[in-house]
């Protein structure tokens, strides 16, 4: 791995491709969970690895793990896009394309689980980006609080309080969503601070 990283840093395209194949899944899935639609996640995937190539000489393996460093880039790209486009983004059909039911899965429980998962992720994406980001980094990527602090450049105490607030907001939103689905048949769109 160290040798691979050294060769990438010296401009070896084959080493870079190996790293791309190794990390593209995690980067793409993280972006998919943070962004509104699949196309944006694909764009971020490309931007992250373009940035990885362009910044290859400034990466210092002694300062950060490659995985953490890549997620720092990924998260920043996603945040930039969220800030730039979220207010005007329509909720499109492909927004949760990743969760489209698989043809081979037909059991009712699986479908119900998927719907539940879809609803939960939809609510996560509606949270403020600071909150949705820590949830993805902790409960999808399974980064430690220390790594999350490094990725987001915030103190570890802030990570703790942000995760607490994010979980509280998520619970509140899920509860609202659940109750309004009985009363109005649709979820609420109002922002939660």
């Amino acid at each position, binding site marked *: 791995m160290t040798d691979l990283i050294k060769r990438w840093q010296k401009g070896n*395209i084959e080493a870079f491709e190996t790293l791309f194949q190794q990390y593209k899944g995690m980067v793409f899935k993280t972006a998919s969970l943070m962004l509104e639609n699949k196309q944006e996640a694909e764009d971020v995937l490309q931007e992250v*690895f373009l940035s990885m190539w362009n910044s290859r000489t*400034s990466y210092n393996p002694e300062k950060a793990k490659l995985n953490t460093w890549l997620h720092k880039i990924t998260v920043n790209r996603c945040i930039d896009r969220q800030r730039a486009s979220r207010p005007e983004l329509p909720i499109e059909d492909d927004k949760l394309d990743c969760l489209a039911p698989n043809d081979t899965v037909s059991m009712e429980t699986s479908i119900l689980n998927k719907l*539940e*998962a879809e609803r939960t992720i939809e609510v996560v994406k509606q949270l403020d980006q600071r909150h949705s980001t820590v949830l993805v980094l902790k409960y999808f990527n399974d980064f430690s609080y220390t790594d999350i602090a490094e990725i987001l450049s915030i103190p570890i105490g802030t990570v703790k309080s942000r995760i607490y607030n994010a979980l509280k907001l998520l619970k509140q939103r899920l509860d609202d969503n659940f109750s309004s689905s009985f009363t109005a048949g649709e979820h609420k769109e109002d922002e939660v601070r």
Partner: protein
Amino acid sequence: MNCNEIRLLIPAFLDAEVSENERKIIQDHISFCNSCRRETLELASVQEKLKKAFQTAAEDCLVPDDRWNQLLRQISSQSRVPAMDKNRTGLLGGIRAKKRWKVGLAGTAAAILVLAAVLVPTLLGPNEEVLAIEIALKDPEVLAMLEQYEIDPKNLGDESAFYIDDASKLVIEVKPGVWIVVDVDTGHKEVASVKVESLSGITEQDILELAATDSAIKQIIEAGARVEEIHTSLFYPSSLHIYNEYPFSKLDFDPQEMLGLVSGVSLTYQKEYYTVFVNHTLGKVALVIKPGDIQITYSQSTTTVTRTVPSRENGE
């Protein structure tokens, strides 16, 4: 700890991210406090639901498999476009650029270049660099330069980095801080070197001092950013990275021009000056810092602000 303090730590407690001492305190507390115990159970339930949802989403999420080729094309185009004339874009533009370069190199390079251009026009991405190095290695002057630095041409890319920079120059690093630079357009070759300690009279310490004394950077830091490191790398011998999120409106830039949030600041050394790049939602701000003055230019507007900072050369 009171209930509020305990509650803030509940997710960290559930994630095993608290100290042994904190764990005992929390465990004792929730054994007698009903509301905190209820909150713990609720948050644990939300955590489980969330993990399951993420896992389901990830399992069904198909990673696009055609992105590698697109990425290569993008890498190729970004290394080629900046030095081209406006009418030299696209594939033909790339080939024409290389033909011009060929003039400045040894004649034997022509056959390789033309053959490659005809046979593999769609592979101009990585091949641009591969071709560049192949051609350069046919050039006696480049070979002589490599020999001077005891570089085996066969090991380029493994033992010595090479790349085509934004100005369409083939750059071969022969040792840290020393590069052979071949101009793609003219074929001109030179050895470039940089020594941070001596150039422009600025040292790494000066960058720190600059960051500490310049009002704009000071504001950035006071607004919550922290100086992360003085980073030394092969191509940017000295750079100061400052990361954080903070409202741009807190700075003394024109808020009408620069509404939005800053996502990152970096300061890099660039031959004769230092540049602070401020990324924000509307684009990029560059603070170009030279001995004697700091010039701030906004990429999204024509506004230019000039600041004056103490010149190292004049100051001593």
